[in-house]
């Protein structure tokens, strides 16, 4: 957990208090996520301190590249909805996480369906992280099924700027690594500008309960 908390771009919608609260909640949520995943896989995961950033539309491709690196990637997206709405992108830079096949209950005698494994692993990570954040914040969210976004593509091409619907997005980025295995992936939570106000309200409510 050596990575610095840093912001990319300027935060115009969340107040400093709200931002600090979100950082705290993200930290706690990711901690919970780590222990849940350890229970499922029986292995310790390392999670970086979440990085929170407010990103303008035209900067989104560049920021994504800055967060996940230059190399070509495999990416999965999954949407969440309910009291908070947004999308999560899970980026695997080292190809399909075949190391995890056994942990996910795939028989090594079967032909491993790599993409299904990718979706399963993504679902677990997203569920654990967002579930952790949502339960800390005390909100109820649901998920839609994950889907493959791109195979062997450049992070820059992941979301073309002109296809983005909102003028601004809030990014929360976490990096996962498994201690026993050479597995790592990035998870980027993205919330559209319109949702940030709702998140702000939830954060205020949370602060009041302290």
């Amino acid at each position, binding site marked *: 957990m050596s990575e610095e908390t840093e912001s990319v771009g300027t935060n115009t919608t969340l107040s400093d208090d709200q931002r600090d609260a979100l950082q705290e909640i993200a930290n706690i949520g990711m901690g919970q996520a780590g222990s*849940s995943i350890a*229970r*499922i896989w029986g292995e310790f995961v390392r999670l970086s301190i979440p990085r929170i950033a407010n990103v303008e539309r035209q900067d989104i491709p560049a920021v994504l590249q800055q967060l996940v690196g230059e190399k070509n990637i495999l990416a999965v997206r999954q949407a969440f909805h309910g009291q908070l709405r947004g999308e999560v992108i899970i980026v695997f830079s080292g190809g399909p996480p075949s190391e995890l096949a056994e942990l*996910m*209950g*795939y*028989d090594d005698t*079967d032909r491993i*369906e790599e*993409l*299904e494994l990718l*979706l*399963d692993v993504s*679902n*677990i990570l997203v*569920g*654990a992280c967002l*579930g952790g954040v949502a*339960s800390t914040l005390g909100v109820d969210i*649901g*998920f839609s*099924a*994950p*889907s493959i976004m791109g195979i062997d593509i450049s992070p820059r091409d992941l979301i073309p700027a002109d296809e983005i619907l909102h003028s601004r997005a809030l990014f929360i980025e976490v990096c996962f690594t498994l201690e026993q295995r050479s597995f790592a992936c990035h998870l980027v939570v993205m919330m559209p500008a319109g949702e940030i106000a709702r998140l702000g309200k939830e954060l205020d409510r949370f602060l009041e309960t302290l």
Partner: protein
Amino acid sequence: MTEDIDRGLLEFIVERLEAGVFVIDRDYRIVLWNRFMAMHSQRPAADVVGRNLFECFPELPQKWLARKIESVFILKNYAFTSWEQRPFLFRFNHNRPITGGIDAMRQNCILLPQKDAGGEVQHVCVTLLDYTDTAMYQMRLNELIGELKQEKAAQQELIKKLEDTQGQLLQSEKMASVGQLAAGVAHEINNPIGFVNSNLGSLKGQVENMLSVLSAYEEVEKALTGQPDLLTSLQQAKIAADLDFLRDDILDLINESLDGVQRVKTIVENLRDFSRVDASEWHHANLEKGLESTLNIVWNEIKYKAEVKKEYAGLPEIECIAAQINQVFMNLLVNAAHAIEERGTITLRTGFDEREVWVEVEDTGCGIRPENLKRVFEPFFTTKPVGKGTGLGLSLAYGIVQRHQGRLDVHSEVGKGTTFRLALPRNRAAEPLSDAS
């Protein structure tokens, strides 16, 4: 909210929803099994409720599914399966008993955690949706995409062929213009060389005559002993002109010039033979003559590389486009010379029977490797260093021979040498293949 709704209505919805709904508890026991599941699995709820899911359906991928359900209990989170990666969880009949086209119902499943008041997951509720129609559309779409890709590949291949052909055409056009230029130059040179040659011939006779007259005059000198002044001035004039040397040299000069002009004439004739102005006309021609004139054209390329042996059989004339056949000879001769690294032999052999005539060009060069042998006629195939060969020569030659309804064969042994054999029919078929073929 649910308290307000009629319980019977909720039961009806769960039971009759056009989707599979079933619920399992922490021990994988089936708690609820709706009508859709019962109908499609042909296992009524009474049969399975209260029993372990994997006992009732041993064909399920137990290890993987148990892990998945476990993760829902622990993470209190959704889980999913998608038909694209896992066509189905339960093998159910699809809804196309008549139209068919697919082996079993395609399914998307959602595993939903049901939490108690304390937030602990008590049950996992599984919704199973029939995605067969979507899957069928997708399959059809994929087939179409596959066909499009194939078509695209075929088009690419065609474009490549077109490019190759264009390259060949360009090359042959280039050769044709070079030929025309050469023919034009040859024609222009031919006239002046003609009169220089005949003038030199006349000059030689006249100089000989003059020299004999001069000899006659020299006889007269003896009669001039009485006039020493005259004799002295004559002697001085002869010395100044170096008459003795001049007498010997003047004829040598003329003879050498005649020889030189003769050589120019030969070159011009060869050039004209090689690139006839009527380059695309069919004529009766003797291939040995064509081979000879071509050999003279490329002699500079060959003379330091190889001794040329000729084993001519005295070919009959055949109908051909001589300029084009000469181009084939040129390619074969230049290739033979290039194949020889230090010094070797090129043997030109001809022969004929009642059906065809043939010409062989055999070299003692490096030979062609078997894997390259079948590619030598491919356009742009070359083993020569970049810049040295275009890879077009032999493909061009091949095209020409094909248009003549002949054959161009190659035999080669690495380290020993290569033989190209050109065979042309003695009588060409009434309708020659068009140039475009």
